[in-house]
């Protein structure tokens, strides 16, 4: 277990470990110094890794903690700050991302995704070709959603703070496939719609960021929106988030020409009740 997840390391232990390090340079470490280094395998002030992939920003455990807290408050104050939501997800993802990776490793489709590492961009998705698909197919509805929202798959924030190449890809894939979830569930891009989707994702992935959004996001809603969330969206998310197939294991790119209803049936997701 790496020290960076042990956020509970006390200041005392930290100081002791730094002292232990300076002592260790001069003589063979005594038992007590070795014990002290237990709590922080390395100093909280130095990044644990070098640069691992394009866009990677190695940060120290201390910076990570500050960034996590800071991004959490900023994202709460302004949910439209996608970069802050992204930073929150990355700084708190750690072992939860590893768990998602393990679930992907257990599934043939998930393994194929990890092996081939497909990226979702407007180029790889061939949006123009998708526009030619008949109405009601997954691809057509997906492009319709993108056009309605005036977004593109290329506007996703790249991953910066995940200290593993493979887990960074998992994070990236999770982020890139988010728009497919909207198409699949029929949830609108409104604050309560997004919160409903976060509940759904929380049950799917267990990521702490989805949990924080699920619990603290509703604080900003009006009472009308909140009652709608509690009456319709959350019960729906609880039911289908846990019973559907793990959506991280879905190769969406290959489902584009199938009718939305068929995709929903196969993945075990009913569309969210429209209110």
């Amino acid at each position, binding site marked *: 277990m790496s020290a960076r997840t*042990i956020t509970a390391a006390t200041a005392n232990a930290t100081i002791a470990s730094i002292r232990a390090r300076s002592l260790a340079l001069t003589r063979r470490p005594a038992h007590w110094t070795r014990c002290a*280094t237990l709590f922080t395998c390395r100093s909280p002030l130095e990044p644990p*890794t070098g*640069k691992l992939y394009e866009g990677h920003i190695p940060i120290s455990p201390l910076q990570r903690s500050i960034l996590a807290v800071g991004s959490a408050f900023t994202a709460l104050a302004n949910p439209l700050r996608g970069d802050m939501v992204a930073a929150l997800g990355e700084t708190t993802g750690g*072992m939860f991302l590893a768990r998602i990776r393990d679930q992907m*490793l*257990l599934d043939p489709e998930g393994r194929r995704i990890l092996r081939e590492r497909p990226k979702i961009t407007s180029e790889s998705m061939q949006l123009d070709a998708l526009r030619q698909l008949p109405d009601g197919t997954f691809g057509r509805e997906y492009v319709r959603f993108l056009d309605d929202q005036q977004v593109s798959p290329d506007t996703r924030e790249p991953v910066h703070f995940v*200290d593993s*190449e493979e887990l960074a890809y998992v994070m990236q894939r999770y982020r890139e496939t988010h728009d497919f979830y909207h198409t699949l569930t029929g949830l609108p891009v409104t604050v309560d719609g997004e919160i409903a989707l976060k509940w759904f994702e929380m049950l799917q992935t267990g990521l702490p960021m989805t949990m924080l959004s699920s619990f603290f996001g509703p604080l900003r809603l009006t009472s009308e929106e909140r009652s709608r969330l509690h009456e319709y969206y959350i019960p729906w998310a609880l039911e289908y988030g846990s019973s559907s197939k793990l959506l991280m294991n879905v190769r969406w790119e290959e489902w584009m020409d199938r009718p939305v209803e068929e995709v929903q049936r196969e993945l075990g997701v009913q569309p969210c009740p429209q209110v």
Partner: protein
Amino acid sequence: MTAGTLSHLAAAVRTKASTASAARAAFRASSPFISAQRATSTVRFSSSSQSGSAGNDASNSLNGTPEQYDVVIVGGGIAGSALACALASGRASGTQKIALIEAFDLSGHMQWSPKPDQYSNRVSSLTPRSVLFLKQIGVWSELDLSRVAPCEGMQVWDGVSGARITFDGADAKKDSTRSSFLRQVFSGASSTPASSAEFFDDQQQQPDFSKEQESSPLAYMTENLHVQYGLQKQILAHKARGIQLDIFERTKVQDISSNTSSGQESDASVDISDWPVIQLDNGRKLQTRLLVGADGVNSPVRTFAKIESLGWDYSQFGLVATLQIDPSTSTAPDQGKGIAWQRFLPTGPIAMLPLNNGFASLVWSTTPKIAQDLKKLPAKEFCALVNAAFNASPAELEYLCKNIGPDGQPLVDFQSEIEWRASVQDAEKGGINRGREDYKAPKVVDVQENTRAPFPLRMRNSNSYVEDRVVLVGDAAHTVHPLAGQGLNQGLADVECLARVIEQGLLSGSDIGNIHSLTPYSSERFFPNLAMLGTVDKLSKLYNTDFGPVVWARSLGLTAVDNMGPIKTEIMRFAMGLEEPTSSRRV
């Protein structure tokens, strides 16, 4: 425990010695049968005055009058045979009339002629304490030391988090004279009986224990068959010098009863009415002063004595196999020679124990289904999977195990899947500035044919080890999860203690079958065995999960212990059997 309980004993219990040990049968089947030894026991010239057994003969026994013995040992496994050896080598106990009953072949062990490139799949680690005992009873010198592999180090790590603890035999010899906290906690013996050494005849064979400490491997790995061979050889040597030691091999116990009203012509001074009577399937009947149950986990003797055994079956099977390894692939110093490797996976621990000549013994505890699948898997895929079990992530391993077909055929290309994951893992490792690179276990290149065998894992402890005229040793008394390699060592410690208690009883003129003379055995062994069982059981449960907080806590604990030298030394000495009374008082 006298007259009152006799009525309980009276109810005869039907027993089948075939339950003695199915697993033992598996490896004995390969030994050739010889029948020459079969009935060596028919005529005994005299019986000692202490034994009180009237001179009777085979005809007596066949027409219903039981032959009388002082000690009858049911079960000729390692514990039973070792007890026969230990009793035969005692000054007083050597004068007793002893019988050893075994359902399978014993003399076949004498034909044990191993090839240097073949190892049996049943291998045990003998702790220094067990080795000391085997030396005392003259068995160790019979062994072929080129087939005994000293284990000098141990690498144990958590498959989920990677937290690791390393043991080095050299550390354990420090502070060897110090009585420790762990010793006080775990060794239940309150009394400090005199050294067992003085009870054995072969004084010149007494090893110097302090000298023993200098090389101090943690344990010695050897095949169970090898130990059996040494024991058998020593038993024959005892017989040759006139010890009244009768072997009934390929003989099953049909029935054990307490013969209340036999009314036979025994001498008036000795009341043998409460001695148990053992009915053998060859028609003979034995009546004994003391009945020893060394008959394995489903002990018929225990059933006869109405001793309850508590515990549970783990939902795990152990899979053993003999592996061929490529030592040059290990990153440990000296090519990992003499290092035992153990990794805790969420399905159970996997261990590779060092043997000589580039061989190793595998013990893989896992789910029953996976154990059965592993047995059927082709050798190439099996080796790939064992290598993955020591290196790959638990999720990867789960995926591969899921992809074994019903006939053992691999459903995916194991080699390419494993290589892909290994390349990803290596890429990850490259970026992390790790202070210490963990040693890697050697690569498995082949598995010896027909050595893969699964067996169920259980934990049992008898409520009591002694009853009037009945005593239990080894697996009959207690069964433990193999993760610490302690089962056989516990059994040998039992035997050492029981032989000492019987010797003392004889010297003080008491009836060795009487429960009061046996109580010291029970009180010395019961608590240490229970402590070991409990410790191993908790370890097994602690590591049988990948639940985040538990993994975090156990990894912190393991790293802490790994960094706290003195505590680690205590644990090592406990596992080596150096903490318990026999050895510590010898120093």
